[in-house]
């Protein structure tokens, strides 16, 4: 019996203690008509050995690829220590730290995470995590709607925001009959189109989201847009790749006052791509908004002896206390991912993070220079980017990507399903994990794909 320690003796003695004759007797309150006959569709149990073998076979079938896809999920180097530590049983198999005294490890780590993220986004407070970047944005926008009960139940979201983030937002916000208005982007720069904003009146919306860098890798003029939105009495939510914030102005530095909320996915901080998850939503805001925050928050306090310690706090926002009046239904969040990300940031450090960001960006410039030689390929937008860019190709992108896969390369993301208006457009990302050789390989493979 895998994972069950009971011997026949144990069972007999335990049944005697309870005063029943069989385990079946313990189910005598279950209506008899609900019985069913086993689970014939399921395979019999397999040993760890068999599954190891099977998983290794499937993994080697999937193979390893030279990857140039980013689009919201980024391949970065993860220091070996990160998961050797995060995988320790004391982190891996602990529950949400309700019993503070028995959870000081996780609680202190969460407090450190909150501190790091507040500082990185240049805002005041952070929660302990949300599911992922897309749901973090949805929660951020709900915060804004709650914080501005006088404003219209409308939020503005740029069309240059990740299509799957927009999809997620709509799933969530439409339940509460909140309108999600998409703002067009400027076809020349890829940035939010100022003209599209002008048509939105003051008080007509509770919040505007700004994606920095945006889905195209393009850097928005975030300060100008923030100023405009604040001028309309709305809140500003920055949706940012947190790695970019090592070098790019973070939401707290936008315009005079800064944005009000920052959110996004901290996957670039030590979280493997892993086929799409688990990742790590982060959320920070100004102090004034803290009681609107969803999710766990850890505070520092003192114990009976006056020693400093950590505990979950401001729980009156949460579902287990406030039930139908909570700021969100979120309960289990992404604890282990926060553990990894916090350790990652501690290991990489302030300077290290800045260098990673610079190197990512440098690779993207270097690739740009190489691709300038490839006939028919050109950047689609004329605006500064961070480590990711849209290329226009002379052929349908799927065809090109297919050929590049033949060389073991994942060449980028075809934008046609999301932005058919952009033609043969491909989103390409480089991180610090791509070497100069990789870029050469990419350029050659792209050229060959276009020629063949």
């Amino acid at each position, binding site marked *: 019996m*895998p994972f*069950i320690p009971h011997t026949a003796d144990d069972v007999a003695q335990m049944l005697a203690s309870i005063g029943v004759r069989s385990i079946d007797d*313990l189910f005598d*309150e*279950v209506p008899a008509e*609900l019985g069913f006959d*086993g*689970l*014939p569709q*399921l395979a019999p149990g397999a040993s760890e050995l068999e*599954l190891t073998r099977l998983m290794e076979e*499937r*993994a080697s079938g*999937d193979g*390893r690829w030279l990857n140039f*896809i980013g689009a919201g999920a980024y391949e970065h180097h993860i*220091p070996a220590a990160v998961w050797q530590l995060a*995988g*320790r*049983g004391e982190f*891996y198999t602990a529950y*949400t730290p309700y019993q*503070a005294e*028995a959870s000081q490890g996780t609680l*202190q*780590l969460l407090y450190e995470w*909150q501190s*790091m993220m507040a500082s*990185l986004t240049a805002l*005041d*407070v952070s929660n302990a995590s949300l599911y992922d970047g897309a749901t973090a944005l949805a929660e951020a926008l709900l915060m804004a709607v709650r914080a501005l009960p006088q404003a219209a139940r409308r939020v503005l979201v740029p069309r240059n925001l990740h299509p799957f983030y927009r999809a997620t937002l709509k*799933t969530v916000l439409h339940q509460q009959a909140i309108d999600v208005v998409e703002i067009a982007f400027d076809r020349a720069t890829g940035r939010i189109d100022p003209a599209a904003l002008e048509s939105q009146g003051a008080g007509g919306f509770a919040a505007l989201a700004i994606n920095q860098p945006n889905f195209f890798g393009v850097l928005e*003029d975030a300060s100008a847009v923030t100023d405009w939105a604040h001028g309309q009495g709305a809140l500003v939510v920055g949706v940012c790749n947190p790695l970019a*914030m090592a070098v*790019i*102005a*973070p939401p707290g530095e936008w315009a005079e006052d800064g944005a009000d909320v920052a959110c996004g996915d901290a996957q670039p901080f030590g979280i*493997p791509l892993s*086929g*799409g*998850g*688990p990742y790590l939503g982060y959320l920070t805001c100004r102090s004034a908004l803290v009681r609107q925050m969803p999710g766990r928050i850890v*505070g520092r306090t003192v*114990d*009976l002896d006056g*020693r400093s310690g950590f*505990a979950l706090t401001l*729980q009156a926002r949460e*579902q287990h206390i406030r039930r139908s009046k*909570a700021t969100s239904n979120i*309960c*289990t969040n992404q*604890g282990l991912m926060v553990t990894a990300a*916090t350790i990652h940031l*501690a290991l990489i*450090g302030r300077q*290290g993070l800045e*260098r*990673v960001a610079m190197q990512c960006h440098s690779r993207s410039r270097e690739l740009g220079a190489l691709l300038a030689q490839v006939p028919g390929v050109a950047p689609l937008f004329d605006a*500064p980017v961070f480590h990711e860019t849209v290329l226009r190709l002379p052929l349908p992108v799927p065809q090109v990507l297919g050929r590049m896969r033949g060389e073991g390369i994942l060449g980028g993301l075809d934008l046609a399903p999301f932005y058919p208006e952009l033609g043969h457009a491909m989103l390409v990302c480089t991180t610090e994990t791509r070497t100069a050789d990789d870029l050469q390989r990419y350029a050659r493979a792209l050229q060959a794909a276009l020629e063949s």
Partner: protein
Amino acid sequence: MLIFELSRPQRGNHAQFVAEPFLGLDDIPPALRRRGTPALPEVSELDAVRHYTRLSQRNFSIDTHFYPLGSCTMKYNPRACNSLAMLPQYLARHPLADPATGQGFLSCLYELQEILKEVTGMAGVSLTPMAGAQGEFAGVAMIRAYHAARGDTARTEIIVPDAAHGTNPATATMCGFKVREVPTGPDGDVDVEALRAAVGPQTAGLMLTNPSTLGVFERPIRELQRVVHEAGGLSYYDGANLNAILGRVRPGDMGFDVIHVNLHKTFSTPHGGGGPGSGAVGVAPRLLPFLPIPVVGRDENGYRWLTEADLPQSIGRLSAFMGNAGILLRAWVYARMLGREGMRRVADYATLNANYLMAELARAGFDPAFPARRATHEFVVSLKALKAQTGVTAMDVAKRLLDKGFHAPTTYFPLLVPECLLIEPTETESRETLDAFVRAMAEILEEARAAPEMLKAAPYTLPVRRLDDVRAARQPDLAWGSAPG
């Protein structure tokens, strides 16, 4: 000591510094660049490793302690699930890479969908919800979508029993519904008559947890669900407690329309100090069109993601990519290790352990909240009498248990039982461990009678003594360097 206090300017972990020369940021206008210096630590690799290794030792965890936290299913998390989900190829898989490059990964997810269909008795499954609460969200959103698709827009209420987990009412609100509570009867089952009185044309659905958070199987389960159906509402099954019935009875067979399963409970994926979880949802045939995307489909070309194109009535996406995909791999490994026979054993032995522990605690002088009922995989003990006699509360007992090397049960939940402990031993604990727990509880009972004041100040042997929660909330210190005002 905080990691920041170990930090020194110019220290840092140079092995992690990108060594090669790189181009600068001169192509980015200065106005777009960061001005302030973030307060990230600069520590050596040794300092970081030592700091977090030592921090980890300040946690209780399944791997170190018995952790009978009711409603949380803190059972053994097999290590193979972790290592197999972390094979290099899976970790490196980009979610937007062509499905042809990830048939192995996708096949595991597909098979997990099939397994969950089978064990829940539902017609379709989506794995995308990232925790139980998001599964609830998906479920209630599907209920909304179902009524909307039929033009039935008057249904504005979700009914929730008073014993429900907080996520249930919170979810109903998130989904734009009003919440109507129904009470629990004296025997622990939901009051059927009250439910009958509560339903009506405004009823969108009922969210029911079974076995309930009171640790009992809702005997009128079929009737409860029938009452709601007859009123035109749908029935939601909170499957957080599936561990109690896995392989023995199926929510689908009970007539439910939608269920979520906490894979981080019943399928033993790690709790990780608060997630990631996974709240896969299963649906009856009438909700199939509304399943959240992506779902893994299979055709002659192999496995692929099903999207809006395949499921145009879907409630939509719940995450940027594919939920907590790596957690799903772990759940699949676990399910395959258990296999056909193993599923039912989970329910059998979880139930055996809970009933044994309830019986032994009763012998030791504790009061089960529902002594006439069977425990399911968990049960509630009330310390009301103890408090009346000695002033010792459930919280005091919980804290004292920590001193004795046991994690505390869930305290003060469900809210309707005064001074309660919700105790869930799980099937992976041995009888010896349960017996040791009973001995510790019996000792505490003696201590409560002999020296109640001592218990008020427990714990004594942990890294910190009892913490001041009030101060934490009144003078919030939520980030380093921003001391409370």
